């Protein structure tokens, strides 16, 4: 297994003129087309609201890849892993794109008035579809009291962004509502839950958290990449020790930023719903998708003639095992969330599966339009890949592992579509061109940056003290 190629920077650089030296241009082109289309959509009044949902879908589909790659780097550093050194650099490239993802979070932050909770907090109703539903709730509240309604609305308008006022108005509404017979019980739960969340949805706190995520991603993405790249030249062992020493705190920052950014920007799309395991669920998607991307990029580099002497079937076997394992973990976490919500049957929690299973425009009409997507996820994100990737031989054959990785990556996008889009319209499945444009924009820009960095640095950490262990790695 020993290689004849000398482990030096120049032997592991991307050559001029090959497909990989211009890959970033292709990605940049896709990103530019996607971004222009998406911006054009965001500018129009009819699509501005849809844009936010499509963008969050695209953003998190890609963000989870970058964060998962960061997790892969951190776990290798934390455990002083030897086997993964030759595949770690690809993950480091992917994680080094996190500063780009931090910048790409801005469209979400700029558009927070499109979140359903915004009105509750800031008292400035928007005019879009989901808000109309929320407003319908509010009107339903105040309707029996009759006279109270215009006053409350006036007050909310006058005081604009004053949160206390909105709280007061909501409180009044809740009290009135409680006395009204024949109301929708889900509705009371909705309002009460939102009331309790006002501290969390405080705007300063919300932006403060966003600053924390962005700082964490910029710092972690840059730091671990630089520590590794500097070692290419200096061969200094101390850099490995520094990366190892930094990884426990980095792991905590990773976990907190991933969990709470998903809470703030995805879970909050349905503001009354909550699930404490949601962060773990998002983490599982990140782990699966990033391993799939690491496998695909590493294989593609090998196909282009790189890494042949240092990455072999043993490494792919282990990456495949991790991907398989984390995909089972994904199903386990997804089911855990479902089981608890199903068993408890609390109205403010069951909405999530109601929208994704049996909600249709006419009550009692049976399975809704999202039930099909839910079934696709169950069968094609778990059952089929489980049996496809179960066997050791499948994971040790590069074409079949490549198929499995590509498959799971597609399902990863479906999964994120399923998280985000039922919040846009609860009762219908409508595909929109922004659902293509936004992932193209985010993915294109992110991968253009990652692929560009790949042309500037060695494809393996040539200065890592454990590199020989990785080259001679065998599964027992």
């Amino acid at each position, binding site marked *: 297994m020993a290689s004849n190629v000398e482990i030096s920077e120049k032997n592991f650089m991307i050559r001029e003129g090959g497909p990989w030296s211009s890959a970033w241009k292709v990605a940049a082109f896709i990103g530019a087309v996607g971004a222009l289309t998406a911006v054009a959509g965001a500018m129009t009044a009819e699509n501005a609201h849809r844009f936010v949902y499509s963008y969050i879908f695209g953003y998190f589909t890609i963000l989870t890849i970058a964060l998962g790659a960061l997790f892969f780097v951190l776990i290798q550093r934390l455990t002083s892993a030897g086997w993964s050194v030759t595949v770690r650099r690809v993950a480091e490239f992917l994680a080094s794109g996190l500063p780009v993802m931090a910048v790409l979070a801005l469209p979400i932050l700029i558009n927070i008035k499109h979140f359903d909770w915004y009105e509750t907090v800031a008292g400035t109703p928007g005019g879009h579809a989901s808000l109309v539903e929320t407003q319908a709730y509010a009107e339903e509240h105040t309707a029996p009291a009759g006279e109270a309604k215009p006053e409350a609305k006036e007050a909310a308008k006058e005081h604009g962004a004053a949160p206390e006022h909105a709280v007061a108005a909501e409180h009044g509404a809740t009290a009135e509502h409680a006395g009204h017979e024949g109301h929708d019980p889900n509705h009371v739960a909705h309002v009460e839950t939102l009331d309790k969340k006002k501290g969390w949805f405080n705007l300063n706190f919300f932006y403060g958290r966003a600053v924390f995520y962005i700082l964490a991603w910029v710092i972690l993405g840059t730091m671990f990449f630089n520590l590794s790249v500097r070692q290419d030249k200096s061969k200094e062992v101390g850099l490995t020790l520094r990366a190892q020493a930094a990884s426990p705190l980095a792991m905590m920052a990773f976990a907190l930023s991933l969990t709470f950014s998903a809470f703030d920007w995805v879970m909050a799309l349905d503001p009354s719903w909550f699930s404490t395991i949601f962060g773990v669920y998002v983490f599982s998607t990140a782990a699966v998708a990033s391993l799939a991307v690491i496998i695909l990029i590493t294989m593609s580099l090998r196909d282009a003639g790189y890494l042949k002497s240092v990455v072999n079937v043993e490494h792919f076997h282990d990456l495949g095992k991790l991907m398989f394992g984390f995909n089972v973990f994904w199903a386990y976490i997804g*089911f855990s969330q*479902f*089981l608890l919500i*199903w*068993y408890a049957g609390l109205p403010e929690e069951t909405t999530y599966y109601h929208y994704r299973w049996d909600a249709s425009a006419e009550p009692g009409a049976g399975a809704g339009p999202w039930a099909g997507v839910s079934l696709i996820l169950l069968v094609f994100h778990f059952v089929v890949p489980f049996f496809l990737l179960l*066997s050791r*031989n499948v994971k040790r054959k590069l074409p079949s592992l490549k198929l499995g990785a590509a498959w799971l990556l597609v399902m990863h996008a479906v999964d994120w579509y399923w998280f985000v889009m039922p919040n846009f319209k609860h009762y219908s499945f409508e595909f929109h061109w922004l659902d293509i444009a936004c992932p193209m924009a985010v993915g294109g820009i992110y991968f253009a940056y990652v692929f560009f960095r790949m042309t500037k640095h060695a494809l393996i950490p040539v200065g890592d003290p454990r590199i020989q262990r990785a080259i*001679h790695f*065998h599964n*027992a």
Partner: protein
Amino acid sequence: MSDKTLTLYLAEYESAGACVHAAEKLRDAGYAAFDAHTPFPVHGMDQAMGLPDSRLGWLVLPAGITGVSLGFLMIWWMNGVDYPLIIGGKPAFSIPSMVPILFELTILFSALTAVFGMFGLNQLPRHHHPIFNSDRFASATDDKFFISVESSDPKFNLEKTKKLLEATHPTNIELVADKDDEVSEDAP
């Protein structure tokens, strides 16, 4: 096994590398009834010995499927047919509440089959093996590496096997037999 006394050659090596090379030589010479004894798992030894992929998976998969099926049948019969009880307002026979039990039974059947299947495939438990008659063999759990070639191998030959082993530069070769038997030089 035949009534012939099991005899074996025990070759001792100082390093894992030498032991792996010896295993490769024996594999290439067509031996099958030989084994390596090392203080720790040696990477690459499976290939060096020419061991095929473990058959354990072919036992575990059906066991897991059996576990999930039996679990399903059990809950269907108990909750759905024999003694339906409404719990938490859910249907008496409802699939979501079955999943944890189906999962656990799959794991239980798979894990037990993996453990006992491993015993079976390794012909364990085994109360006696002549290799323990060698005094030097105790250091296989300490700092020495051993290759044993058993006389049950069709290629086993006192002269030729010894020559082959000598060519792998062991630090020691000994012929080990069951204690009460004398090793006769005209053994096969």
